[in-house]
C-alpha cells in the first residue's frame, strides 16, 4: 500500500517501525490447511476413518508383497471351504534356487504364471495304501515333493476304485530363459490344462509355435461325449448345456443314466466357433456333479492345437503330466489308475509403471517370506480360490479404479467449471445449461448401452490403441461424475471473483495469474478436495454396481462387484456360505463408510464458516 509522503500523520518513527516489523515477524498466522488439519484431528470419527483408509489402502497397494495365495488359482474342490486357521505346508512348496543363480527366472515364473503354479494330478485309487504308492511314483517321476489329498468319489468305477487322490506337484522351471515380466502376457487367463492317459497323442509336441487365437468364444457348434468306459454318448442324451462366457464354464447336463457311469475321464469333444483358453467343463448326470470325473477338454483337431498351444505359451518345458501318464501306462501301480493332470496357474500383470512396482514388490516378497503363504483364513469360494487374497486384490482393483476415475472426473470438472466461471456471461450460461441437460439424463442406462456397444470393438481397440476395458471404464465413469464437480467449481469461482480479498489483490496490482494461483485456486482447492473424497466412494460403488451386472471388471480380475456376485450367487437355502457374503461385505462396507465419514469430516474441517471454532 502506498503511503502518502510528506504527511506527518502517516510518518512512522524508527522505533515504531522496528516494533511493528518484529510483531509482524513473530505473528504466526494459521493457514487454512493447518487449521483444517487440526480440526480434522479433533473429529474423532473422521480421524479414525482416515487411519483406517490409510491402513487398508496401504495393504491393498502392497498386495503383491503380502504372503497371500493367488486370488485366481483354482483348486479341484467343488464346494466353498469355510475359513480355517493354518499356514500352507511349506514342504509342499517349491524351494527357491540358491541365491544368485536362477532367481530372476524363478520370480519371473512366479510373475508370469501366478504366485505358485502347480500340476494337480488326480489318480483313482482303491485305498490309502494305493494312494501312497501312487504318490511315491509321482514324486519319483516329478523329482520333487508333493502334497496329497484323498477324497472319496461319489461313484465307484468298474475296476473297483472308489477314491480319488489329488496330488499336487509344484512346478519349478529353472531352465526357462529369463522372461521380461509383463511381456509374456498370456492374456491373464487362468490356464487350466488337463489331459488324460488314454489319449496321449492328442496333445501337441511342446515347443511348437503358439497359434494366434482370439480369446473369445460364444457358441458350441458340435459336441461329442465319451464316457470313461469308452462308450460314446449320443449328443441327444445331453439334455442341456450351458456356457457362461464370464466364468468360462461349460456345463453339460446329461439325461438320466442308470447306473451312473463310474469315475474315470470323460472325453468331451467340442467345437466352439472361437477358441477359448482354459474352459472349465463339468458334467452332471442326474443333476449330480461327477466327482473325480473331471472331463477332458479336447476338441476338433484345429481346436485341440489351439487349446494346448495356449498352454505351451505359458509353460514351455514342464510336461510332468505326460511323463506320469506314460509311466503309469508302462508300469501300472496296483490299485491305482492315473486319471488326469491339470495345470493350474494364472496371474494378471499390470503393465507399465504399476507393473514394475508390482514386480519389485513380488521380488521383495520372495526375499522376505520365501514361499510361505497364508492358508485359507477366510475360506475359499466355490472354485477353491482363496477369499482373503481375493478381497485384498479386489480392493486393490476397486481402489485404483475409484482413484483414477475420480481424478478423471476431477480434471474434466475443474477445467469445465473454472472456465465457465471465469468467462461468465453468455458462455457461462450456455455451458451450465449443457450441464443441466446432461444431469437430466439417466446416465446409467446410456453408460450400459455404451459399454455394450464398445465391447464389440474391444479387440480392435486393444490391439490398435491399447485401450482395454479398464481404460474405457475410467473414461466413462470420469465422464459422468464431472457434472457435480463442474457446478461446484463454477459456483465457487464465480463467488470468489467478486470477493473483497480478490478485489484488494487487484487494487494492489497483483497480476491475473497471481490472483488465480494465490487466491482463487487455494480457495477452490478445499471444496474440490471435499468433493473428491465424496466422489471416490460413489465411483467405487458404481464400479461395484457395473461389475455386479457383469459389465465392469471381468474375470480373472477381481473387484468388489465380482466378489458380491460370488456372494449373492452362493446364497441358497441348503447351505449358507456365510463367509462369502460377510467378509467381502465387511471390506466393502467399512471402506465406503470410512470414505464417506472422511468426506463429511473434511467438509466440516475445510468449511471457512466454522474456522476457528472448536
Amino acid at each position, binding site marked *: 500500500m502506498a503511503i502518502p509522503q510528506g504527511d506527518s500523520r502517516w510518518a512512522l518513527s524508527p522505533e515504531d517501525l522496528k516494533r511493528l516489523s518484529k510483531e509482524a515477524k513473530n505473528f504466526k498466522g494459521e493457514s487454512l490447511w493447518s487449521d483444517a488439519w487440526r480440526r480434522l484431528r479433533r473429529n474423532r470419527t473422521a480421524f479414525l476413518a482416515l487411519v483406517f483408509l490409510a491402513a487398508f489402502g496401504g495393504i491393498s497397494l502392497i498386495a503383491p508383497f503380502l504372503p497371500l495365495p493367488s486370488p485366481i488359482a483354482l483348486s479341484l474342490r467343488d464346494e466353498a471351504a469355510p475359513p480355517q486357521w493354518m499356514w500352507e505346508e511349506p514342504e509342499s512348496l517349491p524351494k527357491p534356487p540358491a541365491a544368485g543363480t536362477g532367481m530372476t527366472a524363478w520370480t519371473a515364473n512366479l510373475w508370469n504364471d501366478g504366485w505358485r503354479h502347480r500340476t494337480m494330478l488326480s489318480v483313482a485309487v482303491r485305498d490309502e495304501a494305493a494312494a501312497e504308492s501312487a504318490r511315491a511314483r509321482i514324486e519319483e517321476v516329478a523329482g520333487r515333493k508333493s502334497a496329497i489329498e484323498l477324497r472319496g468319489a461319489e461313484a465307484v468305477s468298474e475296476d473297483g476304485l472308489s477314491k480319488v487322490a489329488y496330488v499336487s506337484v509344484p512346478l519349478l522351471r529353472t531352465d526357462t530363459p529369463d522372461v521380461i515380466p509383463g511381456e509374456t502376457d498370456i492374456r491373464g487367463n487362468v490356464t487350466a490344462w488337463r489331459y488324460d492317459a488314454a489319449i496321449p497323442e492328442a496333445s501337441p509336441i511342446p515347443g511348437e509355435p503358439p497359434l494366434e487365437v482370439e480369446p473369445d468364444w*460364444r*457358441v458350441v*457348434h458340435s459336441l461329442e461325449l465319451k464316457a470313461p468306459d469308452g462308450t460314446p454318448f449320443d449328443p441327444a442324451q445331453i439334455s442341456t448345456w450351458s456356457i457362461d462366457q464370464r466364468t468360462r464354464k461349460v456345463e453339460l447336463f446329461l439325461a438320466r443314466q442308470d447306473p451312473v457311469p463310474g469315475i474315470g475321464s470323460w472325453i468331451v469333444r467340442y467345437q466352439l*466357433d472361437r477358441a477359448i483358453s482354459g474352459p472349465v467343463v463339468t458334467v452332471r448326470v442326474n443333476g449330480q456333479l461327477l466327482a473325480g470325473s473331471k472331463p477332458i477338454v479336447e476338441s476338433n483337431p484345429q481346436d485341440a492345437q489351439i487349446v494346448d498351444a495356449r498352454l505351451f505359451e505359458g509353460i514351455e518345458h514342464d510336461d510332468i503330466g505326460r511323463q506320469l501318464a506314460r509311466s503309469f501306462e508302462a508300469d501300472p501301480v496296483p490299485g491305482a489308475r492315473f486319471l488326469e493332470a491339470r495345470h493350474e496357474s494364472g496371474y494378471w500383470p499390470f503393465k507399465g509403471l504399476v507393473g514394475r512396482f508390482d514386480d519389485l514388490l513380488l521380488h521383495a516378497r520372495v526375499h522376505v517370506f520365501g514361499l510361505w503363504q497364508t492358508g485359507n483364513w477366510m475360506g475359499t469360494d466355490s472354485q477353491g480360490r482363496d477369499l482373503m487374497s481375493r478381497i485384498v486384490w479386489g480392493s486393490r482393483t476397486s481402489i485404483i479404479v475409484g482413484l483414477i476415475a475420480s481424478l478423471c472426473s476431477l480434471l474434466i470438472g475443474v477445467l469445465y467449471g473454472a472456465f465457465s466461471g471465469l468467462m461468465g456471461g453468455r458462455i457461462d450460461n450456455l455451458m451450465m*445449461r449443457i450441464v*443441466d*441437460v446432461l444431469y*437430466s*439424463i*439417466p446416465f*446409467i*442406462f*446410456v453408460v*450400459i*448401452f*455404451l*459399454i*455394450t*456397444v464398445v465391447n*464389440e*470393438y474391444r479387440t480392435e481397440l486393444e490391439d490398435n490403441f491399447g485401450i482395454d476395458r479398464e481404460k474405457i471404464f475410467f473414461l466413462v465413469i470420469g465422464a459422468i461424475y464431472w457434472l457435480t464437480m463442474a457446478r461446484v467449481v463454477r459456483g465457487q469461482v464465480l463467488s470468489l471473483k467478486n470477493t473483497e480479498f480478490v478485489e484488494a489483490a487487484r487494487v494492489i496490482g497483483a497480476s491475473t495469474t497471481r490472483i488465480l494461483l494465490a487466491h482463487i485456486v487455494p480457495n477452490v482447492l478445499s471444496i474440490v478436495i471435499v468433493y473428491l473424497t465424496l466422489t471416490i*466412494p460413489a465411483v467405487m*460403488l458404481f464400479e*461395484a*454396481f457395473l461389475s*455386479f*451386472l*457383469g*459389465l465392469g471388471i471381468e474375470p480373472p480380475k477381481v473387484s468388489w462387484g465380482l466378489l*458380491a456376485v460370488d*456372494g*449373492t450367487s452362493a*446364497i441358497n*437355502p441348503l447351505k*449358507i456360505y*456365510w463367509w462369502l*457374503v460377510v467378509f467381502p*461385505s465387511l471390506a*466393502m*462396507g467399512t471402506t*465406503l*463408510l470410512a*470414505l*464417506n*465419514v472422511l468426506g*463429511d469430516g473434511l467438509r466440516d474441517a475445510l468449511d471457512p464458516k466454522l474456522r476457528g471454532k472448536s
Partner: protein
Amino acid sequence: MLRFLLRRFLWFGITIMTVMTVSFFLMHSVKGGPFDGERKLDPVIEANIKARYHLDWPLWRQYLHYVGPFNLDDNRALFAEDSDGDLQPWRSSNPAGQEVKAFGGVFAGDFGPSFRYKDFTVNEILAESLPISMLLGTLSMMFALALGISAGIASALRPGSGIDLSLRLAATAGIALPNFVIASFLIILFVFMIPLLPVAGWGTIQHMLLPGFCLGLVFAAYIARLTRTGMLETLSADYIRTAHAKGLSPRTVVLRHALKGGLLPVVSYLGPATAGILTGSLVIEKIFFIPGTGSHFINAATNRDYTLAMGVTILFTVLVYTLNTLVDMAYTLLDPRISLEDE
C-alpha cells in the same frame, strides 16, 4: 410458468434427440449386426432377417424410419422365392405374405421389434414390465420418504443426543453400503434363517417387501440427512419461536409449521432420487428375479438386444426428465421465495 415449461420442453427435445441419435448410430455402427456371431446363417434366412428389421436399408433411411412418423415401410418385410428361384419380396398383397403392421417410429411411441425376443415388440415388453418396476419404485419411494422423514425429524428434535448420533451413523452406513450387499444380508436373515419371506419372484405383497426395502434404504438415508439439516434450520427460525410463544403444542409447531420449510431440500432431492431408484432397480430386480424393466434392460444389454436397450434408455430419459420438471414446479409452489424465471 408457461415460459418455463416451454423452455423445459425445448431442452427436453434436444436431450431426447441427442440420446436417441447417438445411441442409434452407435448401435448401427456395430459390425455384423445383432444376428451374427453365432452360427453362420443361411444367406436366404439372413436376407430375410435383415429385411425384416430393415437392416438392408441405408443408414439414414433406417434412422428416419426409426425416429419418424414418416412411413417408409413398404411392407417388404419378408422375402420369398419366386418360380425362378430368385428372391422376391413378399408384399402385403401377396396372398402368401403376411400383413406387416406399419411401424410408427419413436415419435409415435413405437420402439420397434425386439432383436432377441423374436415374437415381441419392444413396446409389448415394456408394457409388460414397466408396471412392475413402477410399483416397486413407488413402494420403495414411499418407504424411503416415510422412514427418512421420520428419522430426520427425530434426530433434528434432539441434536447431539444418542438417538441423533445413531441415526446419523445409520444414515451414513445406508449411503455407503451398496444395496446388493444389504440385499444379501437381508435375504440370509429373513428368508433362510428366519423364514418369513419368499426368496424371489413377484406377485404378492410378501414378494415386494424385501426388494422395496433394499431399494429404498439408500434414499431413506439421504432423505433423513436432508430432513435433519432442513429441520434444524427451520426450528431455529423466528417464526417457530413465535409459534412456540403463542402457546401452540410442540407437535403442532413441528408438524404444521416447521415441517413445511424443513422439507424443501427433500423436495428438490426427489428428482435425483427418482433417477437413483430407476438405477438401483437394475440390481435389485436382478437379485430378486423380478421381471421388471431393469432386468430386461440388463438382459438386453448383455445379449445385444439393441432395440430393447435403446427403448428402455429413451423411455427412462423421458421419465426422469418429466419427473424432474414436475419436482421443480412443485418446489416453486412450496417455496414462495423461488420463482421459475430465476433459473
